[in-house]
């Protein structure tokens, strides 16, 4: 198995773990942690492909990951602000109980 395949499998596992956490946990913050893990797994994918590509001097992989890290940090900040605001209103951070719009 080539090193590229090894990194891709690692990234696939991280993505699956993040997905499992995001879909099964009750607390909204853990869901956000799962989403961050998924983003990081995708970043690892990009860097692995950049490293083993034919034209690494084009720096596309690195550029994408730099922007992705920045945007993910911004999204984490806004997401956590939302969770804090929801907690202030519903007095809970439990995703099952924030269901006022349920039909």
């Amino acid at each position, binding site marked *: 198995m*080539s*090193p*590229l*395949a090894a*990194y*891709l*499998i*690692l990234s*696939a596992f*991280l*993505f*699956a*773990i993040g*997905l*499992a*956490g995001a*879909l*099964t*946990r*009750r*607390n909204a*913050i*853990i869901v*956000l*942690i799962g989403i*961050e*893990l998924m983003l*990081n797994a995708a*970043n*690892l994918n990009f*860097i*692995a492909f*950049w*490293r*083993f*590509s034919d034209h*690494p*001097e084009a*720096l596309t*992989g*690195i*550029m994408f*990951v*730099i*922007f992705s*890290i*920045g*945007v993910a*940090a*911004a999204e*984490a*900040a*806004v997401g*956590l*602000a939302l*969770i*804090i605001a929801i907690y*202030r209103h519903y007095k809970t*951070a439990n995703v*099952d109980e924030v269901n006022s719009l349920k039909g």
Partner: protein
Amino acid sequence: MNIIFAIIAVGTIAAAVAAMSLRNLVHCALALTVAFAGLAAAYLQLGAQFVGFTQLLVYVGAVAILIVFAILLTRGSEPPQQSVLSSGWPAGIFVTVIVLGVLVYAIGKSSIVQAAAPAQPEVTVRQIGDALMNKFVLPLEVVGLLLTAALIGAVIIAMKEEGKK
């Protein structure tokens, strides 16, 4: 080389599993920090120095602390009384297994499995800076705008409402 990759991989996956399955939320956040550090080590192993250090600076130094603060502000530090799993968790596990299966199958069947590894590229920070200012200047400016909007938005959303009851 392979030993280092094996250590990084096992450490990161163990930390990620711990982050997703522990009961105590602060322990989850700390395990996530270890996972981030493991990923930074993987980036350094792949030769992307700048990205590795940026990952440490942004994720371990800022996002992990944000998550910890949010856990404390939403009273998550007390141990939960009910189960940690939400309703409908079997469907989640099912979807995850299908996604993982598809990904691993796709990787295994593709042509990259047997390819040889090319030489390590030498990337200096100067090249990254040049690229950021010439080829990628538009995304750079847009990200700046986005970060400003996110900053202001996060502050406004999380601010206490004044004047209301």
